[in-house]
């Protein structure tokens, strides 16, 4: 504990490293002030290595090291773990990619790319700002993963080492394939159109008969990769659909592409015409553009997190008083482990030694730590705040109270099949109608003029190819997704918008979802404190690292602080000291007032204060509801069935009834399993459920629900697996988002109508057997472009009107 504190100065002192306010000028180098020794150390490391450019790129770019805990990275010597972390190694040179969530400014990029100056074993490093990752290439002989991680940690960029994060590479590979396909299709479409120009302008009358077939054969050559490579996804998807007896939208598309291609081949080889290869390649090109537009992903967000990404990858094991590290997966029942300040408990355990303040915010969203004493059971997912504790595990990691949730079958397969997607419902009928028209036209011409029957049949199939139909959905939903993203509502894929538009019931979690986690309300009840007294209190709590002390510290905004003498901290009880001749005590009721009162209201935490042995009152720390809750709820409750699930006791019930009406189902004391079952029950009575939650305890319900949205104070923080992540600041727009998803659906329907009109025009040519390549080449891109333009422009216009842009 720091005892001799200088009296603070009123002007604002900014830490040169991290930009946070400094309490005094105590920690400095020359004229540069630092808020804590951690920041100073980072500066020293950078300074001795001539890396002070870091501070010139962005102002105060560093990360505060004030609350930093000493970490132990010994587990990085475990070969099995290393194997899983690295990307590639040849025994000498190794590449490894770390996720660095702290990346936030250009200085970060600069320092991450200049790591080689800090460790000569590092050959090169490359940062990716958007993905917040850094790839490091290093020499095995000169350095190791462990020393690199320690280096990164020492300058404030601690890598996120959970093993579940390694999946991002796979998705980027799929994305790359799409880029290749779009390149090939665009290239072929452009060139074929160029070679088809003589045909469009009827230049073949010029008498160059030997040129025409050359153009045609070149067209075939260019169209081959488009047909076999770029369009292959559509054939595969159509085949898969048909095998499961589903006529998805790719069926009529594939049919159209195949017919276009074969008829063109036939025409060219039989020299009866020049084919429709230009239309075909352009069609594929447009379709892939649509796909790309729809495939927008948020690189830094992860929607598939399970408990593994929250948990540490290794723990400190104590055996015969010797500390060793062990990967979490190998943890066994009965192992004694050491949990240090800020570390997460990986399995249900019993407290053996030490004083535990368990912060269950990952699990329940509740951030006020719970005190535990020896012999108490601590659930996995709790984070220890304060000094190190020793615990003995009583359950396996996967069998712990919380993690058992992931064994539920809801996690095995989420029905991401496209059966319920609107466009596929339409396409079924569409395909049937098109086939009917095609064959009746063929049948009619077979009797009237049999030579035209084949022409009419193929022409109908070509022109009816639902290119515009297939494009309207990705563009309407893709723009909606971007609009949501701008409003800090990030969804996993565009399907979610369609699902969101059809929900009938909304389930809220209480803690952390409709209450705020960060700005827990702290207030003083009792005789009002004078400014002088509040300075005394602030001076006292400053010396304590207890989380509640920090909250009280932040309650008073005063910079003047006093020296304290005779500081005492009794763990679990309170703190006391003599400041300016007055005895100040802060702590539990027993500690401060010497009498215990059993009928305590457990909802809010109380901290008592006495000055010179007279009790002055108590601080209450309770959660507050989100500021816009009333407005959001009143706009929702008339349309949807609302329910509230809370893991807490029901003493907030009366407060909640001010916000919700009598029809709202409220359930308290809900376990994670209860929540999941509740959602399941609702779905059994044909409700489409939107679950809004935040903690890991909601993970089951989020997964089970039709749409699961997780609320996050900081979207880059951990959030459980879900369909969408909503920034807490945009919580007030929840209803607007749902309404807008309905608008998007209407826009899709309108686009369908437009594309049907084009189809009818085209069909009128086709059934007459007079579809020429020129008409097809004009009509198809025209319909596609107008549908794309319509859906994109209207979506953005409506978003603007609704205040989303």
């Amino acid at each position, binding site marked *: 504990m720091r005892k001799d504190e200088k009296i603070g100065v009123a002007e604002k002192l900014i830490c040169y490293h991290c930009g946070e306010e400094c309490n005094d000028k105590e920690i400095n180098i020359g004229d540069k002030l630092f808020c804590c020794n951690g920041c100073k150390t980072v500066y020293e490391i950078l300074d001795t290595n001539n890396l002070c450019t870091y501070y010139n790129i962005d102002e105060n770019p560093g990360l505060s090291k004030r609350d930093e805990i000493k970490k132990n990275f010994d587990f990085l010597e475990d070969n099995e773990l290393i194997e899983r972390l690295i990307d590639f190694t040849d025994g000498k040179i190794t590449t490894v990619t770390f996720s660095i969530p702290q990346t936030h400014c250009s200085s970060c990029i600069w320092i991450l790319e200049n790591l080689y100056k800090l460790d000569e074993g590092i050959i090169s490093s490359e940062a990716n700002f*958007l993905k917040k990752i850094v790839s490091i290439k290093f020499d095995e002989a000169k350095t190791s993963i462990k020393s690199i991680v320690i280096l990164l940690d020492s300058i404030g960029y601690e890598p996120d080492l959970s093993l579940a994060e390694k999946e991002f590479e796979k998705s980027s590979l799929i994305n790359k394939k799409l880029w290749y396909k779009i*390149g090939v299709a665009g290239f072929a479409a452009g060139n074929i159109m160029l070679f088809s120009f003589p045909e469009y302008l009827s230049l073949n009358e010029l008498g160059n008969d030997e*040129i025409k077939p050359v153009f045609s054969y*070149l067209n075939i050559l260019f169209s081959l990769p488009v047909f076999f490579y770029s369009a292959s996804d559509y054939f595969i998807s159509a085949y898969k659909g048909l095998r499961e007896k589903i006529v998805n939208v790719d069926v009529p598309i594939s049919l159209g592409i195949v017919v276009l291609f074969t008829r063109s081949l036939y025409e060219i080889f039989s020299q009866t015409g020049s084919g429709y290869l230009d239309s075909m390649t352009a069609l594929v090109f447009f379709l892939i553009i649509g796909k790309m537009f729809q495939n927008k992903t948020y690189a830094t967000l992860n929607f598939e997190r399970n408990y593994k990404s929250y948990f540490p990858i290794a723990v400190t094991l104590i055996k015969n008083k010797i500390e060793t590290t062990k990967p979490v997966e190998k943890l066994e029942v009965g192992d004694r482990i050491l949990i240090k300040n800020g570390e997460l408990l990986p399995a249900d355990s019993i407290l053996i030694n030490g004083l535990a303040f368990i912060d269950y915010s990952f699990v329940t969203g509740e951030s006020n730590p719970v005190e535990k004493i020896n012999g108490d059971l601590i659930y996995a997912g709790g984070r220890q705040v304060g000094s190190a504790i020793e615990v003995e595990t009583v359950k396996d990691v996967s069998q712990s109270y919380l993690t058992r949730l992931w064994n539920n079958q809801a996690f095995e397969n989420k029905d991401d099949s496209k059966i319920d997607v609107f466009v596929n419902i339409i396409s079924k009928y569409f395909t049937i109608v098109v086939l009917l028209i095609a064959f009746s036209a063929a049948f009619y011409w077979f009797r009237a003029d049999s030579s035209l029957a084949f022409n009419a049949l193929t022409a109908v199939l070509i022109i009816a190819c639902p290119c515009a139909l297939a494009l309207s959905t990705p563009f309407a939903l893709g723009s909606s997704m971007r609009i949501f993203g701008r409003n800090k509502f990030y969804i996993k894929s565009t399907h979610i918008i369609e699902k969101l538009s059809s929900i009938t019931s909304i389930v809220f979690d209480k803690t952390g979802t409709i209450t705020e986690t960060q700005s827990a309300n702290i207030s003083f009840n009792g005789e009002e404190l004078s400014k002088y007294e509040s300075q005394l209190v602030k001076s006292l709590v400053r010396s304590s690292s207890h989380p509640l002390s920090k909250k009280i510290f932040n309650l008073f905004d005063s910079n003047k602080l006093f020296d304290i003498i005779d500081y005492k901290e009794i763990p679990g009880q309170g703190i006391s000291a003599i400041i300016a001749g007055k005895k100040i005590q802060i702590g539990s009721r027993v500690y401060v007032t010497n009498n215990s009162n059993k009928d305590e209201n457990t909802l809010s935490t109380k901290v008592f204060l006495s000055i010179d042995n007279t009790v002055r009152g108590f601080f209450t720390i309770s959660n507050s509801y989100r500021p816009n809750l009333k407005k959001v709820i009143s706009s929702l409750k008339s349309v949807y069935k609302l329910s509230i699930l809370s893991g807490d006791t029901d003493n907030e019930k009366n407060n909640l009834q001010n916000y919700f009406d009598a029809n709202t189902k409220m359930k308290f004391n809900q376990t994670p399993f209860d929540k999941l079952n509740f959602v399941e029950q609702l779905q059994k009575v044909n409700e489409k459920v939107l679950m809004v939650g935040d903690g890991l305890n909601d993970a089951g319900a989020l997964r089970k629900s039709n749409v699961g949205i997780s609320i996050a104070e900081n979207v880059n923080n951990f959030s459980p697996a879900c369909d969408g992540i909503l920034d807490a600041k945009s919580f007030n727009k929840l209803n607007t988002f749902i309404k807008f998803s309905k608008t998007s659906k209407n826009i899709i329907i309108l686009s369908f109508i437009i594309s049907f009109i084009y189809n009818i025009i085209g069909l009128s040519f086709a059934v007459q057997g007079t579809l020429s390549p020129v008409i097809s080449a004009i009509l198809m891109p025209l319909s596609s472009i107008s549908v794309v333009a319509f859906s994109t422009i209207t979506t953005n216009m409506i978003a603007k009107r609704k205040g989303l842009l």
Partner: protein
Amino acid sequence: MSVIFVLIGFSSFVAIMFLAAYIWAVKTGQYDDNYTPSIRILFDSEVKKESSKSNS
């Protein structure tokens, strides 16, 4: 008029070269990160002198 065959061959060759360049660009990851390089280019190259301490 037969010169047109030469021209077609030549133009196709140029076009295919561009396609190849595009595929190479995708393959080497030039489209993976389209933000970081825009910052990286603004970093000053190292000044060898010791006098870079005075500015803040």
